């Protein structure tokens, strides 16, 4: 079917400024296919049902909107953590700031190098999960990423990796338009943690494809940077084998536009997938979590926990779906999305969906929205806690269920500190 005229225009304008990067056989093939997907689907517009609550215009425009570079003047996040640092500045790898890429139990290559070779293990992964993830809902911004990304890392974990791999995204130019594409292959029984932090660019389009083999585990923690004017659209595609584990947590504490999509497919029996997020924002903050989990195996567990604290006109969006395919019996699916609106201007828009074709499953979803409980506030004040402290306490208590999804205590403490700072800055 021909695309509507408006969509064609957006797509053509965006593609006009881009050209397919040169590369080896496998990369060229993947990029050409991805470009065809973009052209067939067209880029999203505000009229698309899947973008009902978030206007994608600033993510699809030919040029990014300018975003001032912000220096938070605080200790960089995860600074105390023993980690392997890989630094990107405005979406370009910075060899000097990065650590040496060799580490026991893992093989790390830059996409820009691997893409020049004619043969690479990433051939079977790069663009594959993204392409799978185009059905039943099209995600053309992810296909655009696959077609035009020149940088990113390809991580292949073969054993238990001793320290987290830390991807640090620095923002240096107020007009930068970064595209990064990462692939993570976690081999049988391997275990790896990837952490991401930083604002990355004025506009950031990132895709991460994660293939988790039988019995393997992948942990992911992300803190999206504080530069308020930045815009980001990110996609995480994951495929889980038998008895494998996927756990992801995201903290977003600023950003005028963030759309985080997570597409997970549970293909092996007894697999576990948890996705969680905490977002705090004010003013023109717009934050969208879109999650699509497909259960296609026996006895799998999935859990989605998303909490948002909004004030001063901020908008929070949650679109979550659990799809249980025919035969995916004994599925345990849980989904909760909650928002705390600190004042009357903020809004929360949610679409928590279930689509179930198996009869022996337990799936539940809940979604709530409301203000701070006045009675709880009064209770704390009557015990001598100041009103500000009491309010902060209640906000943190509200976010706790999401924060509990982080397993590593050092990381959890660091993120909690950031949240406390955010609250402190909002006082007075």
């Amino acid at each position, binding site marked *: 079917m021909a695309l509507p005229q408006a969509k064609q225009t957006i797509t053509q304008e965006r593609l006009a400024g881009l050209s397919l990067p040169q590369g080896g056989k496998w990369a060229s093939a993947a990029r050409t296919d991805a470009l065809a997907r973009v052209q067939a689907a067209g880029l999203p517009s505000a009229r698309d049902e899947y973008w009902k609550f978030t206007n994608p215009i600033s993510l699809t425009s030919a040029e990014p909107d300018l975003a001032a570079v912000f220096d938070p003047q605080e200790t960089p996040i995860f600074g105390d953590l023993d980690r392997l640092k890989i630094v990107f500045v405005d979406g370009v790898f910075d060899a000097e700031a990065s650590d040496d890429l060799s580490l026991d139990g893992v093989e790390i290559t830059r996409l820009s190098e691997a893409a020049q070779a004619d043969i690479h293990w990433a051939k079977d992964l790069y663009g594959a999960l993204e392409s799978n993830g185009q059905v039943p809902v099209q995600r053309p911004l992810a296909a655009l990423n696959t077609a035009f990304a020149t940088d990113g890392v390809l991580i292949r974990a073969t054993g238990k990796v001793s320290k987290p791999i830390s991807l640090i995204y620095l923002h240096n130019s107020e007009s930068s338009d970064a595209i990064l594409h990462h692939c993570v292959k976690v081999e049988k029984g391997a275990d790896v943690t990837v952490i991401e932090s930083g604002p990355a660019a004025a506009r950031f389009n990132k895709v991460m494809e994660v293939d988790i083999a039988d019995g393997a585990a992948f942990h992911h923690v992300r803190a999206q940077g504080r530069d308020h004017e930045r815009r980001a659209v990110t996609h995480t595609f994951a495929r889980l084998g038998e008895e494998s584990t996927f756990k992801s947590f995201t903290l977003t504490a600023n950003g005028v536009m963030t759309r985080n999509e997570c597409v997970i497919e549970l293909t092996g029996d007894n697999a576990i997938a948890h996705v969680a997020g905490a977002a705090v924002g004010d003013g023109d903050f717009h934050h969208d979590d879109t999650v699509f989990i497909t259960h296609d195996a026996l006895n799998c567990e999935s859990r989605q926990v998303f909490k948002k604290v909004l004030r001063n006109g901020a908008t929070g969006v949650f679109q979550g779906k659990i799809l249980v395919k025919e035969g995916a019996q004994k599925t345990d699916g849980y989904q909760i999305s909650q928002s705390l*609106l600190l004042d009357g201007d903020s809004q929360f*828009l949610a679409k928590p*969906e*279930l689509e179930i*074709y198996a*009869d022996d499953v337990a*799936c539940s979803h809940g*979604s709530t929205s*409301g203000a701070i409980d006045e009675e709880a506030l009064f209770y704390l004040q009557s015990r001598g806690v100041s009103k500000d402290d009491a309010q902060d306490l209640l906000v943190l208590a509200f976010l706790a269920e999401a924060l509990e999804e982080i397993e590593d205590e050092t990381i959890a403490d660091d993120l909690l500190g950031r949240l406390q700072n955010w609250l402190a800055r909002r006082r007075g």
Partner: protein
Amino acid sequence: MSVLDTTEVKEGVDQETVDAVREVGGKYKYGWETEIEMDYAPKGVNPDIVRLISEKNEEPEWMTEWRLQAFARWEKMTEPEWAMVDYPKIDYQDVYYYASPKSMAEKPKSLDDVDPKLLETYKKLGIPLKEQMILAGVEGAEDAPAEGRKVAVDAVFDSVSVGTTFQAELKKAGVIFCSISEAIREHPELVKKYLGSVVPVTDNYFATLNSAVFSDGSFVYVPPGVRCPMELSTYFRINAENTGQFERTLIIADKGSYVSYLEGCTAPMRDTNQLHAAVVELVALEDAEIKYSTVQNWYPGDENGVGGIYNFVTKRADCRGDRSKVMWTQVETGSAVTWKYPSCILRGNESQGEFYSIAIANNMQQADTGTKMVHLGKNTKSRIVSKGISAGKAQNTYRGLVSMHPKAQNGRNYTQCDSLLIGDKCGAHTVPYIEVKNNSSRVEHEATTSKVDDDQLFYCRQRGMDEEEAVALVVNGFCKDVLQALPMEFAMEAQQLVAISLEGSVG
């Protein structure tokens, strides 16, 4: 034998529930056909047919014009595809848009003049129109109060209303209850003011089509301060083959009034699909209350999905006045495809909307149903309780919207959707939209049975019930309240449905 009889049921599902569903999903009781001579308009739809329908109903010029404008609009629209239902493309030109029993060519003056064959039809359906209007001798009536309960009925047969009972008695109370065609002739000022004011002509594909070709339906006006002395009811019967039924219902409850309205529907068993596209508009002014209950039992098609009614219905209530209240209750068991979202626009301050639904889909049935609660006024409240049950190869979807506008301060919504799957070939889906644009409102969407109102649960438990009993009582209590208000004809069926347990349910 129905698919359900051979389906293995998983552990934990209450046997009573399964039996109840089997009973409902079993043989269709109303599948017979009345042999009666009919007058048809030519097949298909075009401005001439629209004019013809208008002429048959002896409508004034403004009404004809209204219809023609709707038709012109409809021609430019496309059929919606977003619902999770799948059916072959409908050929809108292969349907009769008007079919009326020949004996109705001259309008009968009273029920005594109505063709006995028609009266017989309704009697067979359990809806006695003549003298026996007091419910004696109806199956299951033993529980009815000794003096009997009165229900005024408007009976719609294919495209026309064949008669309305108790009109005189209602008139004494000031209540107008008649067919919509009569209202257009007799009460044009009310119809002009309210028709299309809740569901605009341009609302959606099926509503626009209905606006152009609706042939009959019911009209109710309850004057200020009047509590309607009896239940009002419309019974829709599709009889003729290849005929679409397009009825239009308009209910206006003026300030401080109260009315309870019931709707029932059945159709013969046929192996072709038939189209039913109705529009129902409710207007509640200050302090008024409307209860609208539906037992939808259109022919669902056989176990292979052959035949059945396509039920594409637009129902909406406008709680226009402060403190007004509308309650929708629906028991959806029939139709091959259902596309229906009875909604409430909570415009008045402190107005309330409630939606209770039990949707049962069996064999190859597909149901996409739910509600919209649009909170515009301050201190508005809404409550949604929806239970979907799928069996055989059926698909059952709850689709709903709860919207709190920025000015809807202190709005409150509670939504609960439960689904139950019986067998592993069917599907249950939930598609709720939640839009909260102020922070003094509380919106809760729950799908777990333990999250019923804690205070009520506590109250029940305090009196010695175990948790499960308490939950069942609280959730079913809402439905039961309303279901008990249904006339006895529906009571048997409804009570079976209420027996459905929450065990083994999923979001």
